[in-house]
């Protein structure tokens, strides 16, 4: 029988490392360690339940019971403490332990007998949150989840560790045969096709930047694409909107239909969802994405998009360009920023500042069309797609990379922005306790 719900489980890399660090420690008599992962969950309109990990708490050494029949036995105090927190904060809770090997992992017979009752206790005290069991291996996961107000355990469709690179695990998704069209990108790794077939990518704004990105995602084989744009093709778009035709102007074709037309021609099996609205009007759809590309026109839009992405543990790749007058000459510049949850945000990078937001707000009604050109949009979008590919596949083997690239359009240069050196290393603007549905504390 099909499950009523699908579950997507996301864990920030910082919390994943904290769990591994704790669970790898030896104990004076217990064979292994256990801990509790506190989560928040949200039911989305398509019956997907997003489970977001907010915090991890180890079990105190004194709360282990010496019993050589099992790997680890903990006392009722440890469980009661976790239950107390779950009740007080309206959180979910997962019993976590580590199987000390690499590759896929599954519960042992002892786990199958001993752990479900613990998870059910959490579900009983916090029935409107998802709770369950999480077993880590050194590089993979097993999870079993009791959905809100349900009794049955189900396996998530996605378990991901959100960091650079992403660690995406799609339990149950079948690995398709390698497509010949992707032969030339096989160096991206044996799992790259599988990742591209299952990852969900959002594009906010299908203009000069977004249209390059959409086309390139289709060439890569990305099969789940969500696009938001509330505009139709106008004559002034034809200098840069990839895939738009002269006739589209006359017919007032929606930009999302240009997207659909070109992406489907390249990748017929694509699942593309196009929304002819601002993303704010259908934000739940955005919350389903694993990565989002943003090419907003304004700083205020960027700020809102970043806040939404951070709340749902979604890496945001932002691009933008501008042309200024400097010493009576035009100066073209641009940026590519990866806003990774748990890492510096656009404020930490010094890109979004109160001064810029204030100036922009003061110019309201006097903004006009900003300069945009196809080649600069192409450089920025292609670089952003390159960042996405490494983020999703990890093909360069780079860990914890921060991306804030500066584009100099006059000289054709692209390099790390100087602000990268001075960015706050720990983001204080978006913390993990703000994940998921906002919690308002009563006065």
């Amino acid at each position, binding site marked *: 029988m099909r499950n009523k719900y699908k579950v997507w489980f996301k864990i920030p890399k910082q919390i994943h490392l904290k769990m591994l660090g704790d669970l790898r420690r030896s104990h004076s008599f217990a064979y292994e360690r256990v801990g509790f992962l506190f989560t928040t969950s949200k039911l989305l309109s398509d019956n997907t339940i997003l489970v977001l990990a907010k915090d991890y708490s180890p079990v105190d050494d004194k709360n282990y019971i010496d019993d050589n029949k099992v790997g680890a036995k903990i006392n009722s105090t440890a469980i009661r403490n976790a239950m107390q927190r779950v009740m007080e904060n309206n959180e979910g809770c997962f019993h976590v332990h580590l199987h000390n090997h690499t590759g896929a992992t599954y519960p042992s017979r002892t786990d199958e007998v001993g752990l479900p009752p613990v998870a059910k206790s959490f579900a009983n005290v916090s029935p409107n949150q998802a709770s369950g069991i999480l077993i880590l291996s050194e590089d993979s996961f097993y999870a079993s989840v009791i959905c809100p107000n349900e009794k049955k355990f189900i396996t998530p469709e996605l378990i991901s560790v959100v960091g650079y690179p992403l660690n995406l695990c799609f339990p149950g998704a079948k690995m398709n045969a390698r497509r010949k069209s992707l032969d030339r990108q096989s160096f991206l790794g044996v799992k790259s096709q599988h990742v591209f077939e299952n990852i969900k990518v959002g594009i906010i704004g299908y203009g000069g930047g977004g249209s390059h990105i959409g086309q390139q995602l289709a060439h890569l084989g990305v099969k789940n694409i969500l696009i938001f744009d509330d505009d139709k093709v106008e004559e002034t778009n034809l200098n840069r909107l990839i895939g738009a035709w002269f006739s589209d102007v006359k017919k007032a074709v929606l930009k999302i239909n240009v997207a659909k037309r070109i992406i489907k021609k390249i990748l017929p099996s694509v699942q593309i969802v196009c929304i002819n609205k601002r993303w704010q009007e259908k934000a739940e759809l955005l919350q389903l994405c694993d990565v989002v590309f943003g090419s907003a026109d304004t700083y*205020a839009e960027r700020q809102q998009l970043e806040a939404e992405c951070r709340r749902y543990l979604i890496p945001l790749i932002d691009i933008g360009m501008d042309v200024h007058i400097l010493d009576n000459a035009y100066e073209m510049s641009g940026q590519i920023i990866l806003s990774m949850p748990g890492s510096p945000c656009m404020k930490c990078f010094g890109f979004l500042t109160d001064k810029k937001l204030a100036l922009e707000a003061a110019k309201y009604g006097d903004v006009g069309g900003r300069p945009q050109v196809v080649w600069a949009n192409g450089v920025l979008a292609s670089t952003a797609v390159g960042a996405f590919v490494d983020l999703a596949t990890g093909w360069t083997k780079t860990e914890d990379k921060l991306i804030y690239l500066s584009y100099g359009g006059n000289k054709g240069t692209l390099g790390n922005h100087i602000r990268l050196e001075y960015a706050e290393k720990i983001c204080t603007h978006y913390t993990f306790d703000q994940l998921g*549905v906002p919690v*308002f504390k009563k006065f």
Partner: protein
Amino acid sequence: MNFDENQIAELKQITPDLSCAQEGGYNYILIKDLRLPDNCKPEVVDALLCSTPRDGYESRLFFSALITGCHQRNWNGNIRVLEGNWYAVSWKVPGGLKLAEILMVHLKALR
């Protein structure tokens, strides 16, 4: 989130259902069922008060709906914050005021 208790108590005298949350480094006070000045439609809305500088304003008051029936104003703050879509008038309120004063001066925009 450190709000002055006395100021919160004073604000509660005007509009009792208050709670707070943080996003993006800003602290917000959610005001449930805020009664608006006469002739405003709707008469009652939820509002979000950011009492610290934001977007070039010393403070901002966001409403859960566009308000009609009052003076024509420049509604320049159509934003998404804390999972809600909010609307704000471009309205300058001096800095250094107490929370209740900030709220009352913002509401003047709707008189």
